[in-house]
């Protein structure tokens, strides 16, 4: 290949798109490294503290699209204290200073300030796409800046962020000249938006394909919007509350009949009973349905709705659908690939789902490859059946609501069930365990889960052996997060080199001590080993024998970070 001129190699590299493949290219030889770095446009950084923005910019001057992830995953469940980190600001500042022509920014679990958004909006003339997932720290003022200043904005996608509402008119800040919107999602915002501004915006955005409204947008406004955007493919409904006999509702039903291009539906943040019939006409076209925010829909209505959705590939739903409802899904949605069943009340719902629902799904939906399933109980027999029926799982996340619950039929731990899953699903990349589990399940995982990249463990295992099985066996492991397990120093320290092959390790409420963490940090200078000392006593010093409540370690080229709050001790 080196006999080809650079231009030819560049051209070939254009066809290589995925991050991993690109990374692989850059490792072949120096000249490929050089060519690759100048032609790279999209970079994914799974841990914003693994590298400094300056270094990133230096290597990839042609950067156009950046994805950054901040806080560890368990931050979603309140395990990471406030102010831990993950600030966007230094990245934007560094990018703004450079000559990078940033066009796309995708952030997950980062702290984003209004100032950063403002700076972002002013610094990159061709900025096109902003996607924020589970972020916090900004207000609608920051959104106003984005709306006002990004002249070529195509995508503003806010998913599950904590946004403070300043009751400004951020939507009205889109200038009349802005006609380029393709995707707008503000479903997570709590405040009201100017409906007039929204309708006008939709009317002047002929390319708008995806629109997700928040709960403040009433049904009549929805109807008018849908009239103006018959080309919509992805719709998130805000409020779906109306008297079924009212004119507005009838108008809506008629409008819906015209929207034949909708293939993805979500929202229903507020819904009145008996209103769902209006959407039956579009159900047969749906490939994606997300009703997981629709706390107001009863199980029976869900089931009636599902019967119309024969083409579904992706379904996110609440557990009030029940096992019977999942049976209906299994019969109706033969193309189902991804299923998520969320609990409608975190600790219990009499009509909730059990192992029976999952087995039914596995029997009816052989294409299933991604699962997130919150349930009350699970049996080994069910898991074994599921493993046989669905060998294609890539993501298998099972959460039995009651921690430590064994198989209710046999009272055994669920080792065998999960063992069957990992043995059968050779392509499994992500696994979350729950229920009662001994070290045996980890032995199975270490033996069979060769492609496993992310493993989440809670209240499981019996000894250090469990964790060691995983660390030794799962060669492709990137993220390991553990809480409330009896894994201690021996497990942590046996193979310290392993952690440099991984993105991060989280351990909370386990048995590791301060001394072991210090030792690890000393041995591995390219890891940041952070322990969180949330003790309210100001001047407690950490003694080596003390158990560590929370530890987060990650590989990094950036050294110890300077923005850590007081309670984070980087050893």
């Amino acid at each position: 290949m080196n006999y080809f001129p650079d231009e030819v190699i560049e051209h070939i590299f254009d066809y290589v798109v995925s991050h991993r493949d690109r990374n692989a290219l850059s490792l072949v030889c120096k000249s490929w490294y050089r060519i690759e770095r100048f032609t790279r446009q999209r970079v994914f950084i799974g841990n914003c503290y693994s590298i400094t923005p300056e270094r990133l910019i230096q290597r990839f001057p042609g950067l156009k699209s950046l994805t950054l992830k901040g806080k560890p995953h368990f931050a979603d469940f309140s395990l990471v204290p406030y102010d831990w980190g993950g600030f966007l600001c230094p990245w934007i500042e560094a990018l703004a200073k450079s000559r990078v022509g940033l066009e796309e920014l995708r952030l997950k679990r980062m702290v984003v300030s209004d100032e950063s958004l403002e700076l972002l909006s002013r610094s990159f003339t061709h900025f096109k796409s902003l996607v924020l997932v589970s972020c916090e720290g900004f207000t609608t003022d920051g959104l106003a800046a984005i709306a006002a200043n990004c002249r070529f904005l195509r995508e503003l996608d806010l998913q599950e962020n904590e946004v403070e509402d300043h009751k400004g008119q951020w939507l009205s800040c889109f200038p009349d000249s802005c006609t380029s919107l393709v995707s707008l999602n503000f479903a997570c915002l709590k405040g009201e938006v100017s409906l007039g501004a929204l309708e006008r915006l939709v009317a002047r955005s002929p390319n708008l394909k995806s629109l997700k409204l928040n709960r403040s947008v009433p049904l009549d406004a929805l109807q008018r919007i849908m009239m103006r955007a018959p080309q919509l493919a992805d719709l998130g409904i805000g409020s779906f509350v109306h008297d079924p006999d009212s004119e507005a509702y009838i108008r809506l039903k008629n409008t819906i009949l015209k929207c034949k291009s909708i293939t993805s539906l979500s929202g229903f943040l507020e819904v009145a009973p008996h209103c769902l019939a209006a959407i039956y006409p579009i159900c047969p076209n749906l490939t994606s349905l997300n009703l997981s925010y629709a706390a107001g829909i009863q199980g029976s209505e869900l089931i009636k709705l599902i019967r119309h959705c024969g083409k579904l590939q992706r379904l996110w739903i609440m557990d009030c659908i029940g096992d019977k409802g999942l049976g209906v899904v299994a019969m109706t949605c033969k193309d189902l690939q991804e299923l998520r069943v969320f609990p409608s009340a975190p600790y219990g719902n009499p009509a909730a789902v059990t192992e029976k629902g999952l087995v039914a799904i596995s029997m009816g939906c052989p294409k299933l490859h991604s699962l997130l399933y919150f349930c009350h109980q699970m049996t080994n027999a069910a898991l074994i059946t599921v493993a046989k029926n669905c060998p294609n799982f890539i993501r298998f996340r099972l959460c039995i609501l009651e921690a430590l619950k064994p198989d209710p039929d046999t009272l055994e731990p669920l080792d065998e069930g999960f063992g069957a899953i990992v043995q059968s699903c050779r392509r499994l990349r992500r696994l979350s365990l729950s229920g009662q589990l001994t070290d045996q399940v980890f032995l199975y995982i270490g033996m069979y889960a060769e492609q496993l990249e992310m493993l989440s463990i809670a209240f499981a295992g019996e000894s250090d052996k469990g964790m060691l099985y995983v660390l030794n066996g799962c060669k492709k492991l990137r993220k390991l997060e553990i809480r409330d397990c009896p894994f201690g120093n021996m497990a942590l320290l046996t193979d310290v080199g392993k952690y440099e092959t991984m993105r991060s390790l989280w351990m909370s409420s386990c048995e590791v001590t301060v001394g072991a963490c210090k030792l690890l940090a000393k041995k591995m200078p390219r890891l940041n080993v952070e322990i969180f000392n949330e003790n309210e006593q100001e001047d407690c010093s950490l003694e080596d024998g003390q158990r560590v409540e929370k530890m987060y370690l990650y590989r990094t080229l950036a050294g110890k970070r300077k923005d850590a709050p007081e309670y984070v001790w980087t050893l």
Partner: protein
Amino acid sequence: MDERSRSEASPQLLDLMNRSEGKCSEERKLELRLGPPGGEEWSHSGKMKKSNTEREESLLSLGCFSHAILNGFQSKDTTPPWPSYHNKASSFLQFPSTPPVMGKEALASQACCPKVVELQNNDTKVFSPSSANTAVSQPNTSQKRTAPAPVVGWPPIRSFRKNLASSSNSKPPPESSQHNEVAGKKPVDNYGKGLFVKINMDGVPIGRKVDLNAYDSYENLSSAVDELFRGLLAAQRDSSAGGAHNKVEEEKAITGLLDGKGEYTLVYEDNEGDRMLVGDVPWHMFVSTVKRLRVLKSSELSAFTLGSKQEKIALDSAMK
């Protein structure tokens, strides 16, 4: 499902005490023997069966106590099953035995609370046997039935979702107070419960409590404070005037709590014990750190706090 298992469990438990199978005496052995029993090797396969059956009797698991704080779907059962400390617990402590099985539900309820709390507070051990000891040795004392502490972050649901069920078809969900904020060892999982903090007002001897989860902004909180105290304040003025008026003094609205312009100002004490002006930080941060509220006379605020408030007002106007 849960209800069924719970109601089945109760008779089961009672039956156990009468059964003459070996299990029973073993349990008794375990009940009394709460320190490290010593000797027994925690061998993987051998123990499994035995511990399984014991588990059957114990019917509890760590997450079970959460039933107590569940709203809405609770069974009428007033003695919900409480968690027992599981094999996991013993292995945490490197105690090879299984944990004591609670013969009486009351026992379990009393025992679990301190243990769970210790799950949160980490001392050197996750579970301390001493509390279980007291519980078992006084089988008929159902001591204070404290609500067990929920486990932080379990089940693993984003706070964003947790707020949905409580807010459907009604006002927008309150800003999540547990979003990524665990300031101390106390479990913060407030799903389903209000976040009640005390609020006292200068000149009003009786305090109130407010549920911060019911509000999503400082403005709403401020109007709630006004509503709470307006009447009380008027009554207080009335009585301090010696009851000379026959009519109740006109209730005056309490305004300007947040901007320093009113007769009263809203302050709070945070989780570090400091007194702070309400309004400086984003709402959700405030909710996560506030411990109690006070309505002080603006004139009695120290010059320092007054100064910083004016600063804030100046800043605000500059930024807008």
